[in-house]
């Protein structure tokens, strides 16, 4: 972290709220559209206070109409506004795929560079809240697959604030994924007088280590950090690196960590099959091949719909124990 002089400890939710507020103060073209984002302050309370501060022309309560609000956002973005659209649960991205994939992502390209679409879609990912199959998925890989979109996965309050500001200032459609289990997580964030932003495409080392690299996204960073702490007791030094953005991806940052440690595990809460872990593992396998002491391992969510029953749900998400097991195998050649 750069500026800790005037840092305070705030929650992830507060960091998002501060980024929204400060950016809306800076640029009056920024509007927020979403279900219950205005009067109620958002179901996660992330937009609390913004209606009072900016009024109902800039913070708009919409019908439950995801395709429509995303489409209105794209149309408004093409014509001079900078909309932030909240899609309450990442699972509802299924309802806005045309607006994001066929419209927002391609507009700049299809128009030969004439129409920019500066829109931010804020949404969630992550299981663990006992919300079952349609409110728990992590579908960020779908959007990372599409050229023209940028995909951001903050893991700390500091990153959330700095990356959201960058997302809002970007002239492209950006999908900003927040793990709903992290909203109350606290962390050091500089005071509002520090206008810091975090550029896209810069991975961040969350813990330095020398024996094995664990690449972890979003809340999986905490799983990795817990595992690293446990492994330290066994004299295994784990480096935890967070790509922070999938598109653009800091390939060089990830690869240089693995060149140093020569072993790698990639964890992400999206489905393992055809997912983020597959892409990152492929990049590392190819670009750090001659430095690797073992095949790159990966761990995603279990390839099942997310079950409701807690005893079942917990099995589907990567956890520190399983990470410890894989890292031991990587380092010692057995589990």
């Amino acid at each position, binding site marked *: 972290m750069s500026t800790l002089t005037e840092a305070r400890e705030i929650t992830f939710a507060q960091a998002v709220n501060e980024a929204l507020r400060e950016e809306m103060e800076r640029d009056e073209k920024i*509007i927020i559209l979403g279900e219950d984002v205005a009067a109620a302050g958002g179901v996660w309370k992330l937009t609390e206070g913004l209606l009072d501060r900016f009024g109902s*022309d*800039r913070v708009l309560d*919409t*019908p439950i*109409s995801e*395709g*429509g*609000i*995303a*489409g*209105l*956002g*794209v*149309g*408004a*973005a*093409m*014509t*001079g*506004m900078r*909309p932030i659209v909240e899609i309450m649960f990442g699972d509802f991205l299924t309802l806005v795929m*045309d*607006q994001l994939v*066929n*419209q927002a992502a391609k*507009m*700049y*390209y*299809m*128009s*030969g*560079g*004439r*129409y*920019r679409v500066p829109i931010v879609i804020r949404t969630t990912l992550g299981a663990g809240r006992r919300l079952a199959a349609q409110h728990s998925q992590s579908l960020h890989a779908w959007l990372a697959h599409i*050229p*023209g979109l*940028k995909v951001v996965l903050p893991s700390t309050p500091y990153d959330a604030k700095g990356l959201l500001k960058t997302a809002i200032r970007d*002239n*492209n459609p950006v999908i900003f994924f927040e793990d709903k289990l992290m909203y109350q997580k606290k962390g050091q964030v500089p005071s509002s007088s520090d206008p810091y932003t975090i550029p896209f495409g810069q991975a961040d080392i969350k813990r330095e280590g020398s024996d094995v690299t664990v690449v972890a996204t979003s809340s999986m960073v905490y799983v990795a950090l817990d595992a690293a702490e446990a492994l330290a007791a066994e004299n295994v030094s784990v480096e935890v690196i967070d790509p922070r953005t999938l598109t653009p991806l800091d390939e060089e940052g990830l690869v240089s960590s693995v060149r140093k440690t020569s072993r790698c595990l990639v964890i992400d809460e999206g489905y393992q099959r055809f997912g983020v872990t597959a892409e990152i593992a492929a990049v590392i396998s190819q670009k750090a091949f001659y430095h690797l002491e073992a095949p790159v391992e990966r761990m995603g969510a279990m390839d099942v719909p997310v079950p409701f029953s807690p005893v079942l749900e917990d099995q589907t998400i990567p956890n520190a124990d399983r990470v410890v097991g894989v890292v031991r195998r990587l380092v010692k050649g057995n589990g």
Partner: protein
Amino acid sequence: MDLATSKPEAAPAARYEKTFLVNLYRQMLSIREFEEQVQDLYNRTLIPGIAHLSCGQEAVAVGVCSALQSDDYITSTHRGHGHCLAKGADMGKMFAELFGKVDGYCRGKGGSMHIANQDVGNLGANAIVGAGMSLATGAALSAKLQKTTRVSVCFFGDGALNQGILLESMNMAALWRLPVIYVCENNQYGEYLPMERVTAGDVAKRGEAFDIPSTKADGMNVLTVYECAQRAISRARTGQGPSFLVLDTYRYYGHGMSDRNRAYRSREEERHWRETRDPIMRFAALLVENGHLTTKNLELIQAEVREETLAAIEFGTNSPFPKPEEVAQHVYAD
């Protein structure tokens, strides 16, 4: 008033300046000529891919766009050449785009189904049926929030009436009184099926359900279209919210270039529309009847339009293809 069967006389041409009327005629003729040339160029494999012609529907594009200002927005459809021309596009840049050439409106990256023209508020054709509805509504939201008097027109076909996004868009447009005009070009067929096979109920009621003023009118009569559009646009411009126009028209050719035998309808039906309701022929007859133009004038205009079109084709033909490195340009904006 049921305007669906209105005769050209119903909208008295006497109310308008001669230059305005002649311009309507010339624009419709340009679209017809453009489309006929596209058909020929496609058949000679000079236009790659696919194209959807709007011959027969010229009065809708020209009638609506003539009531707009150049900074008003439109969204268009896969059958969008007419909208693009009527909103003020240059034919040469359009041909260049259809040829996939670098001087096209989209540097050859969009083609027939994605042609857009930022200079005059054309937000683009769209190859996803109905997708323009929410984009046009968003542009209207933008116009309202920026406190401009711009309006936004959303063109779509009858085939798009059954996309859910229409309901979502109309609902928000009505709630927030957005300056948007939904223009349904009912050309009677959605791809290969007649409208009544796929569309239930009276479609104007879909707008009325949101308290959006909804009008059915003869889309083959350019002055009728112009007057309906003007009423809707003036409502939108003065903060009174959205309108819905359902304009009856007919596409003379198939859905796309591969739809050649049109087995789903009779040649007799096609002849009926072409011979008794053609928007260009009927309007020309009216202009002659009212003494605005002579037959000789008409022939002169036809020759001029033909010449302009051929010059535009030449411009497009002479334009170079994009350089190979352009393939990775414009994926992301700076």
